[in-house]
Structure formats: C-alpha cells, structure tokens
C-alpha cells in the first residue's frame, strides 16, 4: 500500500535528473525490483499514471524488472535462486539459507529520454 509514496520518490528523482537535460521528454523509466521488495507491479503502474500527471514524466512507460531472490549456499559454495518465497532452502541440497544476495532491491536503473537538439 505504499506504492504511491514509492512512485512519488521516482518522480522526484527523475525530475531532479532532468535538470541536466532541459526540455527533454521522458519515454521510459526502468526499475529493478527484488521479489522481496514488497511492492506490487500492478499497484506501481496504477499509481504511476496518477503521480506523473502534469510532470515531465507524464505519458512515459514504467518498465519493472523483477529480480529473483538469490541466497548464498555455503554448502554448495555458490549463489542459488530459491524455488519459492515459502521456503528459504537451497534447491540443490536442501540447506536452510539465511544470507541474501539479491531480492530486496528497489531501484531506478535508468531512464530513456528524447533530447531536444540544440539550435545552432
């Protein structure tokens, strides 16, 4: 339920970045979201339409890349992807896993913009 505040933070960050590109139009905002980040893509998309209205982000697409939960398995001496969020065990050797390597990310990866050519 905090997707609106998440989206508002995105608008603030991107708007800040745009000051370096006057007049640019935002086409895409790309996120990296861990499977355990506790935000829901549908809610993000819904809030994004509302929060970007009247901002330089209006009309842009929000692309969400979901990152699977990766845990360190000391027994297998490697990073493994857990089979489900209901079991934090190594899918190969069944060892319980407590060291997370990926899964809680909530980041803006990049933005795609159309820049205005400078007039000569």
């Amino acid at each position, binding site marked *: 339920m905090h997707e609106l505040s998440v989206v508002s933070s995105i608008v603030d960050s991107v708007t800040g*970045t745009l000051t370096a590109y006057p007049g640019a139009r935002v086409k895409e905002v790309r996120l990296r979201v861990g499977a355990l980040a506790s935000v829901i893509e549908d809610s993000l998309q819904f809030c994004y339409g509302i929060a970007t209205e009247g901002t330089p982000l209006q009309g842009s697409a929000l692309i969400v890349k979901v990152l699977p939960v990766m845990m360190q398995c000391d027994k297998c001496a490697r990073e493994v992807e857990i089979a489900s969020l209901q079991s934090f065990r190594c899918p190969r050797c069944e060892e319980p896993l407590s060291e997370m390597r990926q899964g809680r990310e909530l980041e803006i990866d990049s933005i795609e913009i159309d820049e205005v050519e400078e007039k000569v």
Partner: protein
Amino acid sequence: MTTRIVELRQGILKKNDELARGLREQFEAAGVLVLNLVSSPGTGKTEFLQRTLGELVNCGSKAAALVGDLETDNDARRLAASGAPVRQINTHGICHLEAEMISKHLEDWNLADLDYLFIENVGNLVCPSSYDLGEKIRVALLSVTEGEDKPLKYPTLYNSADVAVITKIDIADAVGFDRAAALKNINEIRPGVRIFETSAKTGAGMTEWLAYLDQARPAR
C-alpha cells in the same frame, strides 16, 4: 531529437535509507539498543511492549518507546503506565513508520541516558519491511490466534526479522494453535532465527526475552 539512456542506479527509498543510516550511527554512539517491533494489527505488540517496559523499569533499566498508529494516542497512554517515557507517532494514513518520523519524535530525548529504545511500528505485515528505521534488531511478532501459516503468507516481513516472538501463548490450547507448524513455518522463511514464545498476561517466556535483551545491549 536524439534518444538517450541515462543510467541512474539509484535506490528509490534512498532518502529514508540515508536518514536511517544516520540514526543508526547516532544510536550506536549513544550506546542505546534500538528494536523495531513489526506485526499485523491485533498481534499484541502493545501488550507485549507494556510488559517488557514494565519489567525493564523494575530492573532499573532505562527504556523508552515510540509507538506508531494512524490515529489516536491510546497506545502511548497504555505504554506510559509502565513508567517509561513514551511518545506517540500518528502517521495520519501512512501505513508504516519512516526514518524521518523517528528522528522528528526523538527531539529532546537524550539517547545516551537510555539503555533501550523500542519502536512499535504501525500494525501492517507488508510496508514496514521496506523502511529501515535505524534499528539494530527487527522483531517480528505472531500471535497464536493468527494462523500458523502467517510467515508463509508474508515472507517479505518475516524474512527481514532478526528475532521472532510468538504472543498470547496462554490461550494457545483454546484456539487450537499448532505450535510445531508455527515454528516450522518461521524457520522455513527465516532459517535459524531465535524464537521467543511469550504471554504478556502470564509472563511466560518473558525471563528468556529479558535475558536476550540484556545480552544484546551494548556494553557500557
């Protein structure tokens, strides 16, 4: 018109994370152990905390609490009965506490005077897991009335816990609580986490919990 990709690689909750980092440094410098209590509404966070504060005050420890709710100061008034300093944070609709709210409500408290600071989060099993408050220990609570599969349904929160506390064990039999299943489910989501089985009403499990707090406290 030229299309350009601008790399940002920026945490969306960066502002909160930075504030939380500052708070954590402040807490560590002051030598106060800070705990963030998270659970669904009705788990008994306030009752558990009231008992904890009361016992700590009786032992001569200095403990304080910040308590978050959408509205009312009912919980702060309940907790103040323990004799510990307590402040209510009203979020007015926001479903979780944020680092900025903590920093604002600490105001004139001298942290160096405290042994423990408890932060009772807004009752919610989803959003609080994303917001670092600068705590050292995140305590996830689960009551015997909630269903043993709660940790499986809300892995984002239970996986972020440093300690788990089962509350209301005095009524476990009456509600048909399956203890083995609950312990197994917590362990599936957060393998090896320390689990306390408690009743704020009878005091069951409180001795172990208080011993843990004493041990976790930074040495003076």
